[in-house]
């Protein structure tokens, strides 16, 4: 509880936490907060202005934008959490192998990580999605490919630093297996900072999902995503600007919330990472 209080004492952290809680609660209880089906067509109600019945108005197919924004939040959070968790797990395993394994393997892996990082993210995403066709899975695969090298590099650097420390050498001399040394002695010492850094990547992942859906390469219609709402808004930006506003606002609120919260958490838990 002490940590939560420390976050709340920072104005920016408290603000970020409030935004994150707001987004999470609204996504979880989306079904209770709106009476409209996010994919329900209603041709008579096309392009309605925001009003008390339709809080954010309706789009070109008469779908209620508020309910699309709420359900779009589920997609954004799902993609962000699942792909971050997978990238984190893969990054930790690969980083431990590169850091603790033989020198040649380390060199090969570093080269692969650097090569992967040299692709411009969106370009790579476009190339892969062309082959697989648009889908959320494709977006998640891209996110994982893009994130893993960064996490693995950080874990590797820390593992190398710990490898020659006294407690690891003591464990080695007592005959502990490599698996045990990695699990019991190294992992607990390297996992903290990487989890914080990964949590700071959540807004980036949300932006990638929204961006791919904006290009029509993420979720398939009629599934609501903030990016696809933004795309509908872009197509009708001259006549009905509120659709674009409705699509962009949740993206801004969510990315700001997670970023403010992440920055505060990092400053509290690991001041060494400041400025990263």
């Amino acid at each position, binding site marked *: 509880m002490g940590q939560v209080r420390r976050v709340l004492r920072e104005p*920016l952290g408290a603000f970020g936490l409030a935004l994150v809680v707001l987004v999470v609660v609204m996504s979880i209880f989306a079904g209770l907060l709106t009476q409209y089906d996010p994919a329900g067509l209603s041709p008579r109600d096309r392009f309605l202005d925001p009003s008390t019945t339709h809080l954010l108005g309706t789009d070109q197919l008469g779908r209620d934008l508020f309910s699309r924004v709420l359900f779009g939040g589920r997609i954004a959070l799902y993609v962000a959490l699942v792909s971050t968790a997978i990238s984190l797990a893969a990054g930790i395993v690969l980083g431990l192998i590169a850091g603790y394994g033989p020198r040649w393997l380390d060199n090969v892996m570093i*080269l*692969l990580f*650097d*090569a*992967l990082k*040299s*692709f*411009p*993210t*969106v*370009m*790579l995403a*476009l*190339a*892969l*999605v*062309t*082959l*697989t*066709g648009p889908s959320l899975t494709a977006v998640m695969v891209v996110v994982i*490919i893009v994130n893993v090298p960064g996490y693995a590099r950080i874990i590797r650097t820390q593992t190398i630093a710990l490898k020659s420390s006294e407690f690891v050498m003591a464990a080695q001399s007592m005959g502990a297996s490599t698996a045990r040394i990695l699990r019991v002695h190294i992992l607990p010492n390297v996992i903290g900072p990487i989890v914080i850094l990964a949590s700071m990547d959540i*807004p980036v992942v949300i*932006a990638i999902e*929204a*961006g791919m859906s*904006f*290009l029509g*390469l993420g979720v398939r219609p009629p599934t609501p995503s903030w990016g696809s709402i*933004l795309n509908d*808004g*872009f197509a009708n*930006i*001259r006549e009905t*600007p509120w659709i*674009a*506003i409705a*699509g*962009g606002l949740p*993206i*801004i609120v969510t*990315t*700001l919330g*997670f*970023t*403010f919260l992440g*920055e505060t958490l990092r400053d509290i838990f690991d001041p060494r990472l400041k*400025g990263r």
Partner: protein
Amino acid sequence: MLAYAAKRLGLSVVIVSVAMALLFCMIYLIPGDPASVALGPRASEAMKEALRVRMGLDQPVWTQFWNFYSSAWRGDFGNEVLSGRPVIEVVLQQLPYTLALIVGGITWSVGLGIPLGCWAAVKRGSFADRVVGVLSVAVIAVPSFVVAIYALLIFAVSLRWLPAIGAGEPGHLGDQLIHLILPSLAVGLGWVGYIARMVRASMLEVLEAPHIRTARAFGLPDALVTYRYALTIAILPTVTLLGIGIGQMLSSAVFAEIVFARPGVGRLVYDAILTRNFPVVTGAVLVTTAFFVLVNLIADLVIGALDPRVRSSF
């Protein structure tokens, strides 16, 4: 310096060739083959088979890999499916538009970021410093395509101050620059934040340095010490940061080109996806990747030339 440059160049060549190999592996491993993508869902099996043979996809994987690899190094990424023009020509024709956009983005980010970061460092701990800090984080967080859409909505659609679409009249520089303002803002805004933070942090470090204290002790004017002696050193890390930034700006450029209907590599790739022109997509990915690696090489060489410590630690 020469040894450092040679080593760094060698590393870049290795990274580009590994990236090529990785791209080939990803294309090969991912379900879906380029021949079916090119022909669309209604093509018959016989047509697909014929195209597969023509594209060399029926050959053993090692032969395919070698063909891809050796021709990519020669700059041959195959031909466009529809017109038959060499892909490299099509991509290079669009590259200048994207480069203009990125230079515009750098102008925004450096032009706003360095003064803001410097100002925040000088006024350390003040209210202004806090505001710059929060704003920096905020602009970093918001994705470039949201900035692009909102900028389009505010400055082009509502206020009508700036043009909404296109790259401007060819040959008319002023018109082209006016068309560049909003798209390059979308590309560069996030980097205003990164650069402001970086300059602030390195400025604070430099302001504590002995030579700055000496300059002050000699009674030199404050402005001279801050801008002439401290800032010229404090902006050095910005060069490395921009090297990385250009990679992300290449990604943002895709969105800016689509939102503002500008020509460019991003637009080219997007259209190529819609027309299932797969060779153009891979060609553009490889060209932009090589460009990004080249930019990082130049950034490292610049830093290496300015800072001997970097050279010796490599």
